């Protein structure tokens, strides 16, 4: 077990290093976008003609000082790291005085509720379709499978727009935009959930339909490879039942699929950015999109930090999960025979 511990420590150290580098980039990248967030805010204020240029200048310097943008870059960096260490993501520039944590906390549940079920459903259906097309062939392989391949080869916002046009604009079965009816405020009432469910169908199906094809093509290829393996022939020669053999194949073909699942979950927060924008879904994607347009550094940083943590954790878990599924990988990593 000590070998396993040192393996684990080694992994953790590498991930910590990756995390530090990513944090630095996370700080720098938004600041490399041309333009100044305060310009945007002030220009919005002055367009109404409500402010004199004198006052605008005052507001401008006040905001610059407030956000610490007058300080040199390294000082900003230290302040950012210091705040981060206290778990403080700062104040949104564009929506001040809202705190970044609050904005993210409002948007995150919508994204997770949309994405996690979509990814899991798509993954499960895709893998089942993959194994079955490999094993059964026939109509499944020549009819159903190509249809999903066709769907998944279009960009996912295309499918979103097609669905939106067909089922919300042409046939007005589902609402066009939003996560719930604009006339409501989120509350745990029956009507609210009904409205949320209505708004859920289109973005959810656009994600699932895209995901199925991508997953099944990998699973199908792996399963066909495994079907040809000697152990399948040998098990058959001894009369082992078909469902047991499919179970062997499933487990052995699954490794790359697990990676796909973990990475999809890890990058979930950013995964459906455009889907959320197309459907004006009140999730992280819409928030990130708005923030980038307004040069809202703290929100961008907060969200990219979240994405980064998600991806790192997913990768870490994949490494561990491999060992559980395949004893040969476990043996090699901990050095047992």
């Amino acid at each position: 077990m000590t070998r396993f511990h040192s393996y684990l420590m080694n992994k953790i150290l590498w991930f910590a290093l990756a995390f530090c580098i990513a944090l630095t980039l996370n700080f720098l990248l938004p600041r490399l976008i041309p333009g100044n967030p305060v310009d945007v805010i002030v220009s919005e204020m002055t367009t109404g003609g409500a402010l004199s240029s004198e006052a605008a200048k005052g507001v401008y310097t006040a905001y610059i000082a407030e956000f610490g943008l007058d300080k040199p870059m390294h000082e900003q960096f230290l302040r950012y790291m210091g705040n981060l260490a206290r778990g403080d993501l700062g104040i949104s520039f564009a929506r001040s005085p809202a705190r970044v944590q609050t904005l993210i906390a409002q948007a995150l549940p919508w994204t997770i509720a949309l994405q996690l079920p979509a990814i899991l459903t798509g993954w499960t259906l895709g893998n089942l379709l993959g194994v079955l097309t490999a094993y059964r062939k026939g109509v499944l392989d020549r009819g159903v499978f190509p249809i999903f391949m066709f769907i998944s080869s279009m960009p996912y916002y295309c499918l979103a727009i097609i669905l939106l046009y067909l089922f919300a604009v042409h046939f007005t079965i589902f609402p066009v935009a939003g996560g719930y009816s604009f006339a409501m405020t989120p509350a745990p009432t029956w009507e609210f959930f009904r409205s949320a469910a209505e708004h859920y169908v289109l973005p959810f199906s656009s994600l699932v339909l895209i995901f199925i094809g991508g997953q099944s093509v990998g699973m199908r290829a792996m399963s066909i490879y495994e079907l040809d393996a000697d152990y399948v022939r040998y098990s058959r020669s001894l009369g082992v039942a078909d469902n047991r053999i499919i179970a062997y194949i499933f487990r052995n073909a699954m490794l790359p699929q697990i990676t796909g699942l973990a990475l999809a979950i890890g990058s979930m927060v950013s995964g459906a950015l455009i889907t959320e924008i197309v459907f004006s879904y009140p999730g992280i994607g819409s928030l990130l999109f708005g923030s980038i347009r307004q040069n809202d550094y703290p929100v961008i940083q907060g969200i990219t930090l979240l994405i980064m943590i998600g991806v790192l954790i997913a990768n870490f878990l994949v490494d561990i999960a491999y060992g559980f599924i395949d004893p040969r990988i476990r043996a090699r990593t901990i050095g047992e025979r």
Partner: protein
Amino acid sequence: MIIKNVRAYYAAGSGPEVKAVDGVSLAIREGDVLGIAGESGCGKSTLAAVMSLTARPPLNVKGGEMSLNGKTFSLVEQAKFPRDWHGKMVALLPQRAMNSLNPTARVRDFVVDVVRAHDSTVRPRAAIEQARERLEQLSLPARVLESYPHQLSGGMRQRVVAVISTLLNPQVLIADEPTSALDVSSQKQLVLLLKLLLECRFITRIVYITHDLPMLSNIANFIIVMYAGKVAEIGTTQQIVNEPRHPYTHALITSTLDPDLRVREHQLEGIRGAPPDLRYPPTGCRFHPRCPRVMEICSREEPPIVGEEERYAACWWVFEQSKTAGGKEAQS
């Protein structure tokens, strides 16, 4: 067990089929070890796949039947064999034991699946216990049951596979080149294990397929020599090794190394050429393009079968020989 007139062809794209096994019949009695020998590409492993009921497309069985314990089935529809035949009547000892065990399952889990496939009332624990007992009877370590395949050595893996194949006491064990990937000492251990399995009467018949004639003479009491999908010669091991009749058998035997003093000085002869393309098998006798005794008739007509059911050769030259010998006997 008797199999009759097996024909098994591989579908090969749009071209003609590969006639890998073309009209092979054989019989094996209880207690016998039947060896099948020949170069690679002569249809041995195809025959093994057909006999072990594991032929799958692109290998198509075109004809033939199998009789065992008073029951006769057509080999053409392999999927229609009752489940019990797989593993209980005929069992396969495969060519590459290295990859024949599921890499992500412990040996004991596979044993459970094999036993329960034939009797779902057996509890997993009882199945493992049955395997443990069997391993102990054969003086193999029972701890292999707890192992994953990658934790076993190549030789041990092949022996474990042999034990699993014979766990249900099959009537016929089809050993398809089980030693070809093993070093010499592991080969010996496997042969000893097979002999022990026969001695303990866990199995009663072995069909042993190999290109290794010296190995075959250690374990088999009958030998069939195959060439290009057909039987060239059948006889007891003694007859095949000491008095080969067919020119191909003769060539096979003279091309094996023998540490005997008398043959040490000789140059090995070998066989010229390579086995034919079985999409377009040669006319007449399929060996005639390589045969040192080739006659004019060989390329025109199928060779006759010369001899009895258990000792014959399919060859024009042997036919001529036996005629002149018969003629001489008649004269004297």
